[in-house]
């Protein structure tokens, strides 16, 4: 980290500014005393207090966290299975198609994902009466669908970089397929699954578009509530809420990075 030219330092500084200045501004203004968002009135925690007293926001936060937790967990299980099939089943009919399906949500515009899921849910309800109406369940299903893709990709890449002789060694030492999976394979890919879970959690927490399509009355997620509030004008309360969300998401992402890095060090001593 020495002898870097001035131009490099400047561009690094500019990059940081570009990325983080808006966030820093938001965080600072969340501690603003003034009722007007753009006028500085001194430091205060008053908007955080108000935030925690706002029942609508608190409910939405609870709904969001619940949905994020459940869909991240479901996505981790299903995504791990999909990753397994893609990396271990060798060549089978329809493998390319499955790989395409699994990764489609990564590139599909959210509006289309949301709309198609909405149509599916409506059709399913009229055909078998489930899911009855739209609410938490449909949001969980929708979020699981697109988060699964991320987990599958992470797990698949982990599995294909995994030394297969480790699994052979376990079999050689007498491990049957089930104990092989739980004692060797799962522990070795668990960092990938965990970081996939954290990623899914933040993606679910952040999602506005898909949730708007598939949620029903009384089941607004936090981003939906924020969005509807902001349309009536930004209140300092929202700044406080946004600051808290940034905190949660950053912790999750940093944890995911940390886990992946630790695993790499551990695998390649």
């Amino acid at each position, binding site marked *: 980290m020495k002898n870097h030219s001035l131009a490099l330092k400047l561009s690094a500084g500019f990059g940081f500014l570009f990325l983080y200045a808006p966030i820093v501004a938001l965080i600072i203004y969340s501690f603003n005393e003034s009722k007007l968002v753009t006028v500085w009135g001194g430091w205060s925690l008053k908007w955080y207090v108000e935030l925690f007293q706002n029942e609508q926001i608190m409910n939405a936060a609870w709904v969001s966290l619940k949905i994020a937790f459940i869909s991240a967990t479901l996505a981790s299980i299903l995504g791990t299975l999909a990753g397994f099939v893609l990396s271990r089943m060798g060549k089978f009919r329809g493998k390319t198609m499955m790989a395409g399906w699994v990764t489609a949500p990564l590139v599909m515009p959210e509006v289309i994902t949301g709309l198609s899921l909405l149509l599916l849910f409506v059709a399913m309800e009229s055909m078998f009466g489930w899911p009855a109406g739209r609410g938490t369940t449909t949001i969980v299903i929708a979020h699981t669908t697109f988060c699964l893709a991320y987990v599958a990709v992470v797990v698949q890449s982990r599995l294909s970089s995994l*030394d297969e*002789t*480790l699994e*052979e*060694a*376990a*079999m*050689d*030492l*007498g*491990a*049957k397929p089930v*104990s092989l999976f739980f*004692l*060797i394979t799962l*522990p*070795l890919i668990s960092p990938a699954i965990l970081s996939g879970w954290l990623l899914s959690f933040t993606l679910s927490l952040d999602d506005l578009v898909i949730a708007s399509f598939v949620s029903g009355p009384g089941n607004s997620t936090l981003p939906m509530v924020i969005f509807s509030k902001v349309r009536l004008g930004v209140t300092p309360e929202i700044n406080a809420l946004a600051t808290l969300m940034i905190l949660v998401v950053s912790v999750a992402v940093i944890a995911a990075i940390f886990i992946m890095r630790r695993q790499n060090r*551990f*695998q390649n*001593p």
Partner: protein
Amino acid sequence: MSVSSVSPIVTTQTMPTWRQKDAEPFVRIEQINKTFGDFTAVNNVSLDIYKNELFCLLGGSGSGKSTLLRMLAGFESPTSGSIIIDGVDMSNVPPWERPVNMMFQSYALFPHLTVEANVAFGLKREGLPSREVKQRVADILEMVQMGHLARRKPHMLSGGQRQRVALARSLVKRPKLLLLDEPLGALDKKLREETQFELMRLQDELGITFVVVTHDQEEAMTLATRIGVMNNGEIVQTAEPHEVYEYPNNRFVAEFIGNVNLFRGTVVSDERDSAAIQCDDTNGLIALDHGISCAPNQLVNVAIRPEKMRIAREPSSAQNNSAEGVITEVAYMGSQSIYKVRLLSGKEVRITQPNSHRDTGERLTWDDHVYLSWDADSSVVLTS
């Protein structure tokens, strides 16, 4: 290269089992084939391995030796043919039920488990009581001198230490058959030699049958009771180390193991206890002290090891088994010197001579005119 040493572990007084006619083989490989798509990895291999042997499969990369080992372990199933271990047909026996353990080339230690847990893994799968597991793990780690590092994770060990853990892990279940895939490949020279002797000691002590895969002829020579030389998926010769070196049965084996000079010639006489080959390369007759059961006028290759030829400034008194040429290269190696000589026919020959005397100022050197000679029992006739 010191491949001339004969395997030192054939020490039993009785005749080794593989030389007895009616001995029951411990591992019987019968007409095994393995193809991957269009590629034939193992081609019609039949092989008997006896109890307490240390059998080396020797061959270059792609010779099929690793595939054969993986079929013994059960990771690959043969396309046709059968493997019988200790009287049991292994065709439908999965790897986790075979009385076989393997030491992997990469060691394949479980990175998330400690040394202790790695070694205990196999015993726990057998459902042994935890006290016995603990005892056996401690014993075997002591034997490979890794007891003091039992709680470390594999990434905190050096290459040599990992190798010893891998060895302990493959031995702790007391398998009937131990497979080793290039066991010494990743070690430096000094550690290799130590480990070679350690393996031989273990084999003596534990009475396990070993099958070792290696591409290193020196390793095979030192370790093995018998060597199976593989080429293009086939076993081309199976014999004791000194036989493989002294009596190769074809050109590939002669050239693969050690250095060899090959001369082309025509059989002119072939009696029961003598034979002669007219050779244009040496401009003379190569006489042998044994018959070779060849057709008259058959074209053959005569192989002579570099250390079995003598080099001198004066012609030898014998008429046959000699040649004449000019030194083109000299390499002084301390204990021995290597000479390259261009014969009158233009053929290049390699000769190694021990430097049994101190330099007297009359050393052979570049462009010296020299005479080569060898004994009637030094050459081997190869018909394939």
